[in-house]
């Protein structure tokens, strides 16, 4: 426990890939400044961490908890609740915690589908007895436990209340440091704000030329040699820029790849997919056969909601319907 008045920070990963932790490490020399300004009470990617230590803390002992990863297992949920109780400010850090990210596409399938595919159906798996990993398991020497694999992926904000969110898969290093500086300086905006990003959409700062060209056909990125100076969408290549919050610096677009929306929806937009769909509709040639054009967008749900399915209105409706049943 810290014996001084330094800021107390915690960084935790739930169901995540580690990229958000690497993103924190990517602040480089600023890590030393962070160490000077704050005590990092725990950071399992980088420091000693014991659940019992957190359990022993008084409530609200941690000033700011940066929580990355979504909630997929009973262990993730347990820790999210524990950290919520122990933290004054909880930040959903990175796309998984904020909106479910790409692993949230697993919500298109149920738990049983996933377990069957992974452990029984994959062609390299030899599993004549149909074994599936179990929360409790007896081995000859004793008992072993595994966390329960839940039915769906949830952003952490759906499991416990969070004060702020930081978008990005992962958040870019300069933005991460900006967020940490604001935390250190005690200059956080009103609760509910999205930190470490702009308010508007990516197109507002994109250097690609938009000349009002209307789309007569949608194509996939590998099917054409795109003009590197022109707007992707006006070339008929789906780009999530119009429905994505600015702040990443457009690294993907700069190397000739369309945005896929990892920074989530811009300020004031709840459903990123619906917003992107309306942006797509707006560029379609009015004389074209809209139905045919839209059918050229393959995998609409996985494209429009690549990073935000778990946090979408679509998902809410699905869960509400499941509850009614």
């Amino acid at each position: 426990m810290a014996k001084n008045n330094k800021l107390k920070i915690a960084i935790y990963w739930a169901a995540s890939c580690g990229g958000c932790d690497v993103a924190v490490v990517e602040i480089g020399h600023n890590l030393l400044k962070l160490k000077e300004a704050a005590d990092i009470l725990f950071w399992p990617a980088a420091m000693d961490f014991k659940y019992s230590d957190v359990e022993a803390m008084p409530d609200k002992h941690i000033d700011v908890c940066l929580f990355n990863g979504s909630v997929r297992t009973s262990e993730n949920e347990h820790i999210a609740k524990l950290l919520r109780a122990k933290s004054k400010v909880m930040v959903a850090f990175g796309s998984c915690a904020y909106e479910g990210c790409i692993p949230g596409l697993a919500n298109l399938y149920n738990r049983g589908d996933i377990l069957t595919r992974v452990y029984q159906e994959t062609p390299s798996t030899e599993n004549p007895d149909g074994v599936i990993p179990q929360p409790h398991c007896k081995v000859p020497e004793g008992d072993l436990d595994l966390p329960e694999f839940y039915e769906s992926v949830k952003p952490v904000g759906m499991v416990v209340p969070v004060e702020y969110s930081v978008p990005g898969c992962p958040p870019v290093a300069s933005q991460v440091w900006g967020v940490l500086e604001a935390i250190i300086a005690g200059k956080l905006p009103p609760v509910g704000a999205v930190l470490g990003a702009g308010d508007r959409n990516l197109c507002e700062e994109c250097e690609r030329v938009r000349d009002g060209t209307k789309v007569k056909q949608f194509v996939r990125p590998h099917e054409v040699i795109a003009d590197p100076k022109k707007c992707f969408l006006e070339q008929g290549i789906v780009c999530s820029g119009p429905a994505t919050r600015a702040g990443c610096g457009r690294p993907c677009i700069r190397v000739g790849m369309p945005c896929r929306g990892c920074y989530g929806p811009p300020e004031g937009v709840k459903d990123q997919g619906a917003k992107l769909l309306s942006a797509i509709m707006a560029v379609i040639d009015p004389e074209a056969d809209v139905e045919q054009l839209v059918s050229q967008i393959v995998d609409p749900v996985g494209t429009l909601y690549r990073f935000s399915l778990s946090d979408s209105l679509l998902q809410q409706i699905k869960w509400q319907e499941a509850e009614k049943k």
Partner: protein
Amino acid sequence: MTQTTKIRIDPITRLEGHGSINIFLDKAGKVVKTYFQIPELRGFEKFCEGRPVEEMPRITQRICGVCPTAHHMAAIKAADAVYHVDPPPTAKKIREMMYNFFFVADHATHFYILGGPDFVVGPDAPPAERNIFGVIAKVGLDIGSKVIQALQDTHEAVAIIGGRYINPVGTLPGGVSKPISEEERARLEQIARGCVEFGQLSLKLFEDIVLKNKQYVAMIKSDAFTHRTYYMGLVDEQNRTNFYDGKVRVVDPDGKEFVKYGPNEYLQHIAERVEPWTYLKFPYLKNVGWKGFVDGKDSGVYRATPLSRCNAADGMATPLAQAHYERFYHALGGKPVHATLATHWARLIELLYSGERALELACDPEITSTNIRTIPTATPDEGVGIVEAPRGTLTHHYITDERGLLRKVNLVVGTTNNHAPICMSVQKAAQGVIQPGKPVTQGLLNQVEMAFRAYDPCFGCATHAMPGQMPLTIKLHDEDGRLITVLSRDENGRVTTRNAEEL
């Protein structure tokens, strides 16, 4: 006195989540069995169904934020195969160049931040010093700043080609999205020259600090850290190591070629076992068979690590790395080397190779060609892409419909290859240090850590970054599952023991 005791080390951090080790002791206090569990699953093999195959390089890289570039490359090679498209030579070279810069960055991270501090700072040093800052203190600020510079530069190189270091983009079925300008090429060449120097510096450091220390060498060669297994690695046409392309070669515990297979043949040679106590599967050689967690020629357990790649190849394709490769086998008594801890040395030889290979490619007159795309024309159907990830051979297998939307996905991931050997190494290390009547100490924690750290920083992703603590708690339970003792290590590396009553 209880009949059996379970020791649980939890969490030991990362492989797609956390890990835990359970050690069961018999009534005499001897280790009967250890279980290494991965308590997390995300299900990419299911939810990628329905996605367009050209998006897989951008989707599957979210499997691991430490080695996203490896998934990016395996995915794009599988997507090429699905579309039966052969990218122009420059596109392949650009991909391979990005991949080799990534390898330098990744291997450097492991040696200087994750696993290497055990040696550089010393296995007996306080854990609080076994981290990057401890490394800098040991090697001096001059070399330390070169390490930080090398990491920054290689991250920049990957970003020049792929937009960003974590989750790069820029590959498409049939090629890459952006050519390399002359200005970029010159910067990449400069960075690559730095990588070659850095590789040599790292090997010199290893020689001075590790190889000149008899105690370290004895530890590397000791039985506690040895397993005689099969070894796997990707090789080119002359059986030299290649990370981006080639055939998978497997040698037996005597070093003889057991099989060499192309990506499309992987299902004839690799099978995966499921155990109910962990979410991670156990790959093994199908034609040898699963005989349990044992080594030797009759067991299908194989390893896929930097050491394995050296064992599976006949040599390295670049001159400086080849010279070190020869020295490596000369010093360790010929091929194959079974010493798990020699993986650290092999990793540095690979780091040097990556630097040399990146430099070759950055100087290749074709690298700035703008002929970087072949538009796919064939009907997509099925394809397998294999690359070497830093942590082992990585296989992506896709089956699509006629529009290129995925119907089936199968993934055999880098570290997964080593799941069984890691279990075995952890067990052997535990058996070596836990003796009846001898208290369980820091030594256990350290040696058990070292056993798996040699394989894979994915377990310890940034574990040592700051301030260098491996998060470890050992819980001893009695046969009814009651907690007897908790052994834990504080941030200064002190080990404390608390009895159940104190908790």
